[in-house]
């Protein structure tokens, strides 16, 4: 038990050092962006476009503009640590407030989509592996090929046309009908509804779920097809190993082998790659948010480009990337918790 704990500790420390290194690079990137964007660096950094010369002088002092670059960078980072990312150039609200208002919607959409993609993609991939080189396998591979080749904005528009306009089954835009008034607690719509004490709670919950279905399907389709392929490859690899042969030789039935031995080991292999797919999923979610008018951070970011809101772009970059890294790390931990080999490399071979 003691050994296990130290191993887990080393694993945790290694992950965290990587996280800090990553964050360090990210802040450097974002800091250098303020120089690269058109316009004055101080204004790009703070977003104070209407500031008077006196206010600018105060800001310059605050960000230590007269000192060398290193000091400037450190004062920028200390501002970040205090939650100060400057002000949006268009709405003149603090970037932090804007982000806190919008990030939960993106978190909700992407996490639900990730779960949906895994929930459908992985079992279907296993099916394909079990029927390797037979008709179901070819069929699943063909669907997967179409799934990750389809342009997401086109898919979104088609989904709106078919399911909201022609069939009228599902709403096409927004997060919830404006009729419902939900207090902003966590920002995650579904959680907020459950926490609220409104008498129309269940109607609101149903409405929010109906709003969620189409965007989630659009976001989840491409990652789901990638999970299908990953799961198929993983399952094929596992079915080829010696311990499966041993299990067969012992006389276990095929379903016993699949459920007890192969599936668990194959799932672990897939989970290792989920983190990498998450970045891809975020890209898809950004476009989907634009199409479905989803009040998330992706849509806000793309709108800030139209409006040349450079402070918002810097803030959005940091927050979205941090979100991706945190999900990465969580998935790494899940992987390590499920797979002893990842924790104890010394005993693995």
């Amino acid at each position, binding site marked *: 038990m003691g050994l296990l704990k130290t191993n887990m500790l080393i694993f945790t420390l290694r992950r965290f050092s*990587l996280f800090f*290194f*990553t964050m360090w*690079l*990210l802040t450097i990137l974002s800091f250098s*962006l303020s120089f*690269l*964007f*058109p316009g004055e660096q101080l204004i790009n950094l703070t977003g104070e476009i209407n500031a008077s010369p006196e206010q600018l002088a105060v800001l310059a002092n605050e960000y230590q503009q007269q000192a060398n670059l290193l000091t400037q960078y450190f004062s920028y980072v200390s501002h970040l640590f205090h939650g100060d990312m400057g002000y949006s150039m268009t709405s003149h609200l603090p970037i932090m407030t804007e982000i806190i208002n919008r990030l939960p919607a993106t978190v909700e959409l992407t996490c639900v989509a990730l779960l949906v993609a895994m929930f459908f993609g992985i079992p279907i991939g296993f099916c394909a592996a079990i029927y390797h080189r037979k008709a179901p396998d070819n069929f699943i591979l063909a669907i997967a*090929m*179409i799934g*990750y*080749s*389809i*342009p*997401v*904005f*086109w898919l979104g*528009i*088609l989904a709106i*046309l078919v399911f909201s*306009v022609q069939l009228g089954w599902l709403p096409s835009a927004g997060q919830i009908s404006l009729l419902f008034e939900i207090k902003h607690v966590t920002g995650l719509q579904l959680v907020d509804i459950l926490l609220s004490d409104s008498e129309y709670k269940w109607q609101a919950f149903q409405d929010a779920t109906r709003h969620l279905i189409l965007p989630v399907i659009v976001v989840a389709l491409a990652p789901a097809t990638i999970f299908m392929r990953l799961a198929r490859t993983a399952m094929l690899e596992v079915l080829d190993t010696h311990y499966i042969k041993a299990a067969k030789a012992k006389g276990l039935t095929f379903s016993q082998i699949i459920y007890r031995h192969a599936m668990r080991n194959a799932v672990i292999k897939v989970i290792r790659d989920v983190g*990498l797919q998450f*970045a*891809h999923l*975020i*890209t898809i979610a*950004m*476009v989907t948010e*634009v199409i479905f008018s989803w009040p998330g951070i992706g849509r806000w*970011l*793309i709108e800030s*480009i*139209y409006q*040349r809101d*450079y402070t918002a*772009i810097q803030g959005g*970059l940091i927050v*979205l*990337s941090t979100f*991706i*890294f945190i999900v*990465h790390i969580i998935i790494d931990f899940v992987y390590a918790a499920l797979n002893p080999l990842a924790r104890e490399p010394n005993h693995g071979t």
Partner: protein
Amino acid sequence: MARDKIYLEEEFPTPLMQLWHNFKQPPVVMIGFGCFLFLIALALLASVITPYSSVENHLDHLLLPPAWSDEGNVSFLLGTDNLGRDMLSRLMHGTSLTFGLSIIVVMASLVIGVIIGSLSALTSGIKSSILNHFLDVILSIPSLLLAIIIVAILGPGLENTLWAIIMVLIPQFVHITRNAVKEEFAKDYVLASRLDGASSIRILWYSIFPNIIEKLISQATLAQSTAILEIAALGFLGLGAPIPMPEWGAMLANGIDLFYIAPWTVYLPGLAILFSVIATNLVGEGMRHALKVRKEN
């Protein structure tokens, strides 16, 4: 019986020939490859074979449906858009923009990425470790987000989009070249030419590149499908090609408002993107399959 070959000659096909031999086996891949060649031909010949120019207005034929519907006109095979521009011509011109430019983008980032990757494979120690981590960070930022940031620096427009996508794709090539070169450097045949006194650059050029080229091509097809989707996505978001250009993504964005009265203005560009990405992916799939077969033998 005539014997063409008197001497039994042993032939050693080059890695590329071996790749082609394995590549052409599955029929689906050959169909994809055929579509890919067709798209290249279309991209090259678009300006010669299109019936109309991409911006020519036919004001008496606005929003004409495709020829197979009752109101269609056979001289506008795929119908016209809201300004009376021929959809077929625009789609064909779009091939040279979306598909053709994606090839150029991938070539450019392939060359830059391979140069940086092979140089970094020759270095070691702290420098290479920092580069490795740096690549990890860049690779984990969503490509569209990076492209958007670069577009924000350079300003919108098709040319800037292309630069942005080139930059976004470079890290992938650096990563794969670096790993492949390192892997090859550890092999015995490299040691043999090193003992013969070959310099690192010479080894890279004559021994290693011929052996990793198929990995690079396979990565290039992956990158190309990303590039097509990204050019189209940025065009659709209004950050890439401006609306009058027949770029598929921009055409789609242009058609959205007319979706309910003229759905073909949205269906057709989307299908064109889907078709070209599937063709590219099939070629890539065949390439990876061929690589796997070669590894197994």
